[in-house]
């Protein structure tokens, strides 16, 4: 049932999958802990919104755009000195989580901002009219109303993070993508490469399915 090559390389594959989990896991964490607040803040600073602030909005918007439009491979290399400064080293899976986290924050914050734009203006207005504080408006109205969009955005982001993680081999970050390149491509084991790609595809499909299912389940509108 399981192809021989996979059995042969199973320990390396498991280690690679573990590294991918670390890279993507930290990216998700950064997306939730930093990207979500930044995206929310971006939304609230927009014209006509509660914390309307042209200067803050434009600045944040520019930073997010810059990070997002930077070719990721070049970003990883470009920030090596910064990575070394922050993480103590620029090489290895742990160090590689830094660029992953940076792109994750920018990526998810933009999707969060877009998701919140879909919350009806009237709901925000009702919240304000009830005397809700900003914190209440965010947690009792915005996130409640946008929750399935936020889940779908997280799904999209996670899939992008997996894709981003496949190049982390350039800084010794490892991961399943790096495995495919090193063993499948560089050692001419095309079959191995194909199997790894299938593993990734199955995994992505699963995430997509889980995300859509959850989003549907929590959408009561």
């Amino acid at each position, binding site marked *: 049932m399981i192809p021989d090559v996979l059995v042969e390389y199973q320990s390396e594959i498991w280690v690679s999958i573990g590294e991918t989990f670390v890279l993507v896991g930290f990216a998700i964490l950064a997306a939730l802990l930093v990207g979500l607040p930044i995206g929310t803040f971006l939304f609230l600073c927009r014209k006509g919104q509660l914390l309307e602030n042209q200067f803050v909005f434009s600045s944040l918007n520019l930073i997010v755009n810059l990070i997002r439009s930077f070719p990721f491979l070049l970003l990883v290399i470009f920030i090596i000195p910064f990575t070394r400064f922050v993480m103590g080293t620029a090489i290895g899976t742990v160090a590689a989580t830094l660029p992953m986290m940076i792109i994750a924050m920018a990526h998810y914050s933009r999707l969060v901002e877009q998701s919140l734009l879909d919350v*009806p203006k*009237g*709901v925000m*207005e*009702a919240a*304000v*009219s*009830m*005397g*809700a*504080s900003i914190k*209440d408006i965010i947690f*009792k*109205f915005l996130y*409640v*109303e946008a*929750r399935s969009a936020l889940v779908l955005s997280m799904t999209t982001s996670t899939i992008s993070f997996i894709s981003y993680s496949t190049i982390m081999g350039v800084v010794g970050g490892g991961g399943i993508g790096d495995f495919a390149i090193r063993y499948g491509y560089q050692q001419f084991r095309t079959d191995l490469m194909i199997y790894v790609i299938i593993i990734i595809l199955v995994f992505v499909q699963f995430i997509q399915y889980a995300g859509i299912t959850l989003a549907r389940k*929590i*959408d*009561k*509108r």
Partner: protein
Amino acid sequence: MITLHNVSKQFESFEAIKNVSLSIKSGEIYGIIGASGAGKSTLIRMMNYIEKPDEGSVVIDGEALDQVKHKRIRHIRQSLAMVFQGYNLVGNKTVYDNVAVPLELSKVPRRDRAERVLESLRFVGLETLKNQYPGQLSGGQKQRVAIARALVNNPSVLLCDEPTSSLDPNTTAEVLEVLKRINERLGVTIVIVSHEMEVIKSLCQRVTVMADGKVYDTVENNPTGVHHMEHSAEGFVKRLRSGGDANDS
């Protein structure tokens, strides 16, 4: 009591409200009528300071809102509940949870909420729908949920901006009946904005007629007042349309 003193409001270069003064007494049902774009919504939104006037002042029970801290304004808003044309319910919350929101905001302990939420829902006749989501309700039911939500914190005033404008005549009558009962039984002051004469006539004691950002007149809801409202107000609006200044008359 709600008093507006010479309030004005501009959007970019457009004057939406021009030097309006009016005073609403505790316990009355007060109507504001006028054509689309007259400034009715802007005016009622000034009463809870969702819209801040550029000039003039808004005084609620003796407190001038431009003199108090934002936190105090948020507190005052909890006693001036608002009802909207588009209901503005949270779609992902059940009817029960929607009505409970104002109690959460004012930090009423969870164990004390249930009784008040159910009482409020009973008042609008929707207790049985408490576990439904707004998307499963008709327009009239949604508006009654919104009214229950507005009522749950025992407000002294209900500010209603076109509460029946999205409803058919039967449902409109239902909602108006609920509003009337709120005023009679609970003594809640009601301010209602509408462009429908019938709605205003069936409910209000006093009516302000607005056109082009100005108050044309404030009349009693009696035959003389209604006659005045229907005829002169119409002329007023027409004169405005043809470019004359209504203040000259």
